C-alpha cells in the first residue's frame, strides 16, 4: 500500500468527523474500534517496513504550495516507526480504559483528532506540515485538559497552550530563515527536510537556528527551566489527558531534536552538548528531588516523567549510536511506562477521588492485582534490569559515558533517587495496615482496566528481555543519521565528537 502513511494520518480524522453522527451511548465502542483499526494499520506498517533499510520509506510527496516550497511530504524511518506504533497503541489503550463519564462522545472525537495530529507530527518530512500538525495538536489537548480537568483546569490548559505556542512561533521563524537560506543558495523554495539536510551552513548560522529550534522543542520536552507548565497540565488533566501527554506529546520535543536539530546543525549541536547536558542533569536530579517532596501521587509521576525526559535529552546529545538509539528506545519505554502509571493513578482516583498518598496505605491487601501491576510499572520506571526501562537508560548512560564520565555518574543518580521516591510512594500507599475506613472496601481492577493494562505489562517485560526487534531498525537509522552528520560537520571538533563506529550490540 503506497499511501499507508496518509491513511494512518487521516483515518482517525475522518473517523472523528463521522463520529459527530454516532449516538452518544455508542461513541465509546466506536472510538475503541477506530483506534483498534488504526493500531492494526500501524502494525501493518511495521510488518511491511524494511528493517534493513535505514532511509525513509513509504515516502509520499505532493506539492501543495509550490511557489512557497510547501509539500505534502511524508515518510517513515526506524526512528519514527516505533513512536508511531506507540502513539496508536497508547491511544487505543487510553480509549479502552477511558473512565470519563460526561460528554464521552466529545472526548472520543477529540481523541481521534488528537491522534491525527500526533501521527502527523511523526510522519511529516516537510517543516511546514510538521509545524501544522505540531500546532494543531495543542487544540484537542487544550480541550481535554480544560473540559474534563480538575479545579484549576482552565488555568492549566491555557498555560499549556500559550507556553508551547510561544515557543513554536520562535521555531517557525527559524524554519522560515532556513527556507530563506535554502532559497538564496539554490534559488528554489523548499521546506522539505531532505532538501534541508543537504544544506551545509556556517557555524554562526547554525548556532542561531539551533537556538530557535531549541526553544520550540525544549518547551515541549519540557527542559528545565521551561518545565513549569507540565506539573499543572498533569495535575489538572483527566487521566486520559495525562496518559497521552506523557506518552506522546512530550516525545514530540525529543523527536524534534533527533529529526531536526541534530542532522541540520551538527556543529552547533556539538557546541551545545555541554550546556544541554548540564540542563539535562539539573532536570534529572532536581525534578527527581521535587518528585520526592510531593504528596500527590500524580505529581510524583509527573515530575518523574520530567526527570526521565532528562535522560532522553542526555542520550540524544551523546552524539553516538548508543546514546541516540538508547534515547529513542527510552522515548518508547517512557511512553509506555509513564502512560501506564498515569492510568494506574487514574484507577485509584476513580475509586477514591483523591490522589494524596496519605489517604491510602495498605492497598496491596485490598487490591492485589492492582498492586502487582503498579509494582511492575514502578520497577520499569526506576529502570530495573529485565524491564523496558532498563534498556534505554543503560544505553543512554553508556553512550554519554564516552562524552563525560562525571556527568554520566551524576545522571546515573537518577536511578537511585528514582527508586527512592518511587519506593516511598509504593510503601506509603500500598504497604502497612489499612488505616482508612473507606479503603477497606476498594474494588480491585475490573475487566476493562485489567485488559487495558495487561498488554502494557506484557510489552514492558517482552522488550525488557528481548529488545532486539525494535533496537535493530532504530540502530540502523540512527547510524545512518550519524554517518550523515559526520560527513556534513564542518568543524573538526564536531567530527571527533560524532562517533559512528560502535554499535549497540554489547548492550544486549
Amino acid at each position, binding site marked *: 500500500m503506497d499511501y499507508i502513511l496518509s491513511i494512518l494520518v487521516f483515518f482517525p480524522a475522518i473517523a472523528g468527523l463521522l463520529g459527530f453522527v454516532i449516538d452518544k451511548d455508542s461513541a465509546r465502542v466506536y472510538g475503541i474500534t477506530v483506534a483498534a483499526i488504526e493500531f492494526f494499520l500501524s502494525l501493518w506498517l511495521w510488518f511491511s517496513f524494511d528493517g534493513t533499510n535505514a532511509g525513509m520509506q513509504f515516502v509520499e510527496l505532493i506539492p501543495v504550495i509550490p511557489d512557497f516550497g510547501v509539500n505534502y511530504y511524508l515518510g517513515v524511518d526506524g526512528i519514527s516507526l516505533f513512536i508511531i506504533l506507540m502513539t496508536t497503541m497508547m491511544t487505543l489503550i487510553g480509549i479502552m480504559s477511558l473512565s470519563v463519564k460526561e460528554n464521552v462522545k466529545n472526548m472520543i472525537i477529540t481523541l481521534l483528532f488528537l491522534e491525527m495530529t500526533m501521527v502527523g507530527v511523526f510522519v511529516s518530512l516537510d517543516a511546514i506540515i510538521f509545524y501544522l500538525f505540531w500546532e494543531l495538536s495543542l487544540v484537542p489537548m487544550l480541550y481535554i485538559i480544560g473540559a474534563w480537568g480538575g479545579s484549576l483546569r482552565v488555568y492549566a490548559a491555557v498555560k499549556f497552550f500559550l507556553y508551547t505556542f510561544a515557543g513554536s512561533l520562535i521555531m*517557525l521563524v527559524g524554519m522560515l530563515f532556513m527556507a530563506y537560506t535554502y532559497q538564496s543558495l539554490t534559488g528554489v523554495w523548499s521546506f522539505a527536510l531532505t532538501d534541508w539536510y543537504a544544506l551545509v551552513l556556517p557555524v554562526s548560522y547554525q548556532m542561531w537556528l539551533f537556538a530557535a529550534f531549541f526553544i520550540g522543542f525544549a518547551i515541549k520536552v519540557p527542559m528545565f527551566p521551561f518545565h513549569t507548565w507540565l506539573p499543572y497540565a498533569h495535575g489538572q488533566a483527566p487521566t486520559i489527558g495525562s496518559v497521552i501527554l506523557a506518552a506522546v506529546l512530550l516525545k514530540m520535543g525529543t523527536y524534534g531534536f533527533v529529526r531536526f536539530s541534530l542532522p541540520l546543525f551538527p556543529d552547533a549541536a556539538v557546541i551545545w552538548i555541554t550546556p544541554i547536558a548540564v540542563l539535562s542533569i539539573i532536570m534529572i536530579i532536581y525534578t527527581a528531588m521535587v518528585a520526592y517532596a510531593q504528596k500527590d501521587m500524580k505529581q510524583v509521576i509527573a515530575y518523574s516523567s520530567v526527570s526521565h525526559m532528562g535522560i532522553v535529552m542526555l542520550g540524544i546529545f551523546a552524539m553516538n549510536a548508543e546514546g541516540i538509539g538508547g534515547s529513542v528506545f527510552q522515548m518508547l519505554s517512557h511512553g509506555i511506562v509513564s502512560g501506564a502509571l498515569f492510568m494506574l493513578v487514574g484507577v485509584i482516583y476513580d475509586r477514591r477521588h483523591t490522589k494524596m498518598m496519605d489517604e491510602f496505605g495498605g492497598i496491596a491487601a485490598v487490591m492485589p492485582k492492582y498492586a502487582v501491576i503498579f509494582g511492575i510499572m514502578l520497577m520499569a520506571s526506576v529502570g530495573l534490569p529485565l524491564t523496558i526501562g532498563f534498556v534505554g537508560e543503560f544505553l543512554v548512560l553508556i553512550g554519554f559515558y564516552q562524552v563525560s564520565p562525571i556527568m554520566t555518574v551524576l545522571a546515573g543518580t537518577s536511578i537511585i533517587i528514582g527508586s527512592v521516591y518511587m519506593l516511598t510512594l509504593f510503601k506509603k500507599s500500598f504497604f502497612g495496615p489499612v488505616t482508612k475506613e473507606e479503603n477497606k472496601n476498594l474494588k480491585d481492577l475490573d475487566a476493562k482496566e485489567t485488559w487495558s493494562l495487561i498488554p502494557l505489562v506484557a510489552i514492558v517485560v517482552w522488550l525488557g528481555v528481548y529488545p532486539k526487534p525494535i533496537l535493530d531498525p532504530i540502530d540502523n537509522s540512527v547510524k545512518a543519521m550519524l554517518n550523515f552528520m559526520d560527513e556534513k560537520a564542518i568543524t573538526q571538533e564536531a567530527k571527533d565528537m560524532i562517533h559512528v563506529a560502535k554499535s549497540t550490540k554489547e548492550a544486549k
Partner: protein
Amino acid sequence: MLEPIKVSLESLNLITLAPMLIAIAGGLIILSIDLLKEGLHKSLYVMLTVLILVVDLLSTVGLNINERGFFDVMLIDGISIVSQLLVIVGSIVFIPLALSSKRFHEYSYPEFFALFLFMVAGFQFMVASDNLILIFVGLETASLSLYTLIALHNRSNSYEAAVKYFTMGALAAGFFAMGSAMIYALTGSVELYKVAEVLATRTGEADLMIAIFGGFVLILVALGFKLSLYPFHTWAPDVYEGASAALVGYMSVVPKVAAFVVAIRIFGMYIDLGVEWVRIMILVIAVLTMTLANIMALVQEDVKRMLAYSSISHAGFVMAALALDTTEGNTSIFLYYALFMFTNLGAFAMLWISRHKMRRFNNRYDHPYEKFAGFIKIMPIGAVIMGLFMLSLAGVPPFSVFWGKIYVMQAAVNAGYIWLAVVMGLNSAIAAYYYLKLVVYMFLKDPVKDVDTIYYNISRPLMVIIGFATVATVGAIFYVQPLVSYIYYMISASGY
C-alpha cells in the same frame, strides 16, 4: 485667446473608469427604484447590490494591466486590479449579512445600499489612481458614505461612533490635504510618478528633505487614522463598538486594503528613493501598533472591542510588511487581507447572529464574554465554528490567517529583518491569549443564564455566509497557491 482644448475619446481610455461607473450607476438605479415604488423588501436591494457588484467584479477582471486613462489620472496597474478585486469581493460577501432574520433600522432604507455602492466606487477610485487629488476625492467619497452607514444603525452609540469617526476622519482628511499640498509645493506636481522623478534628482538637498519629511509626516498621520495605527487608533474601538457587527467586519478589511494601496504608492515611493527614515518610522509605528493593540486587547471585556483591537494589531502586522518594500512584502499585504477577510467575515457574522435588540448581559456591551459562556452546550456547531475562526485569527495552522502570517514573516526574513519576524512571532503568541479566552469561555465554562435565544438573529442566508467563511478558512491550504501566484504576478507586473 486660448486654443480650444481638443481631446479625442480614444485617448481618454474610458474603459478604465468602467468599474466605478458601474457601481455609481447601480447606486442610482437603487435610488430610482425606491422613487418608483416604495416599501420594497430589503432582500431585493441586497440582491441587486450583489448583482451590481458582480458586474463590477467582472469588468475589473477584464481590465488590461498597466494602463492609464482619463487624462492619465487613472492608473490601472497590478496593485489597483488586485485591490479593486479585494474591495469588491469583500463587499459581495459582507452585504448579504443584511439578510438577518430580525429587522434592523438601516436596512429598511434603500439609501443604505446606494451609499454602500457609492462607497465601493470611492474605494475603487482611491486605489486606481496615483494622482493625489483623485485619491483624496475617492477617500472622501468612501469615508463620508461610511460615516452615514454607521449612523444609520439606529442607536445612541452608533451616532456617537459616527460622529467620532467623522471628526477623526475630517481631521485625517485635513492632514492628507495639507500633506498633498506640501508635496505639490515642493515638486510642482500631484502625480506621484512625476513627484518621484523630481525628487530623484534632488535627494541630496538637506533643506528640501526636511520639507519632504514634513509632508510625509502629514500623510502618515492621515493614513495612520484611516488604518488605525498607533497612536491614531483611539477612535477604532468605540466606532467598532457602536457600529453593527456586519459593518464592523467590513470596516476592518475593505477600507484598510484601500488605505494600504495609497500607503504603498506614497511610502513605497519614498523608500524606493532611498529615504531610509521613512522605513524606520513605518517600522516603529508598525511594531508599536501590533504590540500595544495586542496588550490592550488582552483586557477587553467585550468580544467586539477585543476584535477591534485585534484588527488594529493585524493592521500593524501588515504595515510592517509595507516597510520592507519588496515584491514579497507587498504581495503579503494583499494575501494577508484576502485570507484575513474570510475569517473576519465569519467571526463578525457569528457576532451578528447572536445580536439581540436589547442588551441582555451587560448594560454597556452587546457581546461580553459571558454571553458566550458554555456556547458549546447551547449551540455546538456554532461554538465549533466560532472556535475555528478564533484559532485562525490566532494563527494556528492550517487555517487561513496562518498562511498570511507565515508569508508576511517569510517576507520579513527574506528582506533581512529577522528581528521583525521574531517580534511578529511573539506578538502572535500574545494574541493567542485573547482569542483563546473566547474559546475558553465557549468550550470550558458553563452558561451564565438560560440563553436559549443566543442565535436570535440567524437566517438561512447568514448560515450560507458562515458556511462559506468556514470552508474558506479551513480549506485555505488548497487555494493559497493560486492566490499567491496571482497576486505575486500582478504586483511584480506593476513594478512594486
